[in-house]
């Protein structure tokens, strides 16, 4: 890969689309599997030699990040859109209206926001960070990364980590099963390892909730279904114990946590029936996650002492509150993204001055060495220690002289490539191109 970062004309480019801009039907056709992405990056390398590229493809976005010389074909947005269309066998005209094109600093800002989950469908979701890492690894293996994309993706991971640790954007849970287990059931029980979990019915939501409960340590799980054979089948699939529906009352009396998702039209457990069951529970707390619509448990059961009953609506409201809580953290998260973007851009601009600084240092060092040689010839009695002291003094003097222009260059880099200063240095010290 040709190094382009040091060039003063390096350009960053992004073409792609996300759930915000590209319809699902087109997104499905545009998406790349890992193998397809590796193949595409190989084609990119051949089609745009000397340019860098990383391809990020998830179920919600397909984005091609490229870096190179602006006059090269790769850094023309139209070429990149055509490349994407060719890779997926799509007509360019279909992509043109929905594909976003972003350049330079905006690319960095966008990537940092994406890595932090700020552009995700579920704000702050953490999976995107892993997908960004995967995309980066894939590009590295395909040999399409260079110093600029490497620096940008590493900075993106750092920005995402800062957003995670310094804000609450990704902290509160937003899915019903995760909220049910982490925010409610875990607030009642210290551990699930010694608790008895009862699954009534086995809808998709119940099995997902059971997954979270298993992760939290639940071991003793009973599955209860109206059809005995179905209960046995479900129990085998969920590594649980089957029970007959006729034993509902005794199972409820023994349970600590109930997840209910039957398709019944009427409540499966009435208030009167539960009162009778409650008398056999010896006051033990019971958490009921009633995920069925219509509800399986009479809502008045939740008013009984030591019964914590949550319906889908209750949990959805909690999820919504958590989502709003995440939204409130957005300004803080965006401030971090902005700060990291400016820092990265300043570093990038500063790196463009490296050749001039090297030339300057080399020139001064050469002159210094020549003067030292002349001095040592005229003072032949100097010992090795004295010579070393004088040499160090020269080096310190050169470093101190060089310090102010370096500070000025770094300072100027914060507001863009310091072309003016670099040109001035070249002319003042007669440095070559």
């Amino acid at each position, binding site marked *: 890969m040709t190094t382009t970062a040091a060039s003063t004309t390096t350009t960053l480019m992004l073409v792609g689309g996300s759930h915000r801009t590209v319809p699902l039907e087109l997104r499905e056709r545009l998406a790349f599997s890992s193998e397809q992405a590796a193949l595409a990056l190989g084609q990119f390398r051949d089609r745009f030699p000397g340019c860098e590229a990383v391809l990020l493809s998830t179920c919600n976005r397909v984005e091609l990040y490229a870096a190179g010389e602006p006059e090269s074909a790769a850094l023309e947005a139209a070429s990149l859109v055509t490349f994407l269309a060719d890779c997926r066998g799509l007509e360019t005209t279909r992509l043109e209206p929905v594909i976003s094109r972003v350049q330079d600093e905006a690319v960095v800002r966008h990537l940092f926001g994406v890595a932090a989950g700020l552009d995700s469908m579920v704000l702050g979701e953490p999976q995107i960070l892993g997908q960004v890492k995967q995309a980066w690894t894939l590009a590295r293996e395909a040999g399409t990364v260079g110093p600029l994309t490497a620096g940008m993706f590493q900075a993106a991971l750092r920005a995402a980590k800062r957003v995670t640790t310094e804000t609450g954007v990704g902290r509160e849970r937003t899915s019903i099963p995760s909220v049910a287990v982490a925010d409610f059931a875990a*607030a009642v029980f210290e551990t699930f390892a010694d608790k008895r979990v009862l699954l009534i019915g086995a809808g998709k939501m119940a099995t997902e909730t059971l997954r979270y409960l298993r992760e939290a340590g639940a071991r003793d799980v009973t599955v209860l279904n109206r059809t005995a054979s179905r209960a046995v089948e479900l129990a085998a699939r969920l590594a649980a114990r089957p029970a007959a529906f006729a034993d509902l009352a005794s199972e409820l009396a023994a349970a600590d946590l109930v997840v209910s998702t039957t398709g019944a039209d009427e409540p499966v457990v009435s208030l009167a029936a539960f009162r009778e069951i409650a008398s056999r529970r010896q*006051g033990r707390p019971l958490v009921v996650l009633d995920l069925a619509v219509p509800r399986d448990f009479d809502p008045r059961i939740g008013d009984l002492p030591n019964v914590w009953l949550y319906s889908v609506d209750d949990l959805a409201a909690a999820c919504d509150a958590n989502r709003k809580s995440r939204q409130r953290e957005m300004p803080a998260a965006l401030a971090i993204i902005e700060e990291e973007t400016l820092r990265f851009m300043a570093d990038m601009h500063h790196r463009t001055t490296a050749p001039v600084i090297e030339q300057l240092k080399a020139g001064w060092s050469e002159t210094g060495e020549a003067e030292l040689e002349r001095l040592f010839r005229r003072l032949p009695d100097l010992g090795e220690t004295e010579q070393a002291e004088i040499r160090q003094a020269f080096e310190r003097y050169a470093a101190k002289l060089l310090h102010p222009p370096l500070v000025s260059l770094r300072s100027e880099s914060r507001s863009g490539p310091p072309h003016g200063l670099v040109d001035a240095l070249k002319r003042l010290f007669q440095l070559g191109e």
Partner: protein
Amino acid sequence: MNVIMTTFLSGISVVCFAASYAVALGCEASRLLFRSGVRSMVMVGFASAGLLAHTLYLGWRAATESAVPLSSPADLYLLLAWLLAAGYLWLTLANPRTPVGLFLLPIVLGLVGVATFAPDVPSPLLQDSTSRAWGWFHAALHLVWTVAVVLGAVAGAMWLIQAGRLARKRPPTRGFRMPSLERLALVMHRTLAIAAWAAAAAFVSGIILNAIQYRRGAAESVPWTDLVIVRMGIMVIWLIAADAVALAMRRRPRGDRVTAWLAVVSLLVMVGWIAWGFAIPSRHGGGVMVRPAEALAEGGP
């Protein structure tokens, strides 16, 4: 001990560690307002600095008192505050996301405040080794039951807040994540039991100590009708009754809620018990007529 060290130790005042605890409390309160990556470090840093200053202060007083070390009411309130501050630090390090300091630190600061108004003259009692041993035992038991009451009340308050949040079906408030009801209930039951039995033992040991003093004809013995004995008796009865009710309710649906309220009210009763000690004079603590807060002079608040 060299002069510099002596000057340093004698320069540590109550304000030093009270200010550190107050900053730690401010950090705890700020959890409710904003997130910060460095807050935990600042909070633990100030709490640790406060605890260190607190330890040195008590150590200096113990080393320089002429009578029974740390036997004055003021010292014993400070010792109680030290135990609670150490407990706070341990709990915070073990459970960094639980804002236990919001509950414990105000009590620590309150005790430090009470100590500044309490007499700081060490007990002239307990001249012989038997009396002194009983005195230490009596004081240690007082510390145990008071710490247990405070921890139980904190757990009870947390239980009520957590249960209220679960009943309202609201997700946890930012920076205000409470332990589970199960864990809090366990702490409440254990601390109520410990408080009841330690208070009873403290009462009995105080009676024995007084009987020893009385048999020797010591002028410092407390009259059997002294209000300090009545006051402690009432406290013991309350704590034993609270524990008995909590035990009886344990397998009832409202059992944990009742226990939580009993734990919180026990702290209020203890606060009243301390205030009573300040208000009514007693002979407890020596041959001179002193305020009953000097009950602490023998090892009991």
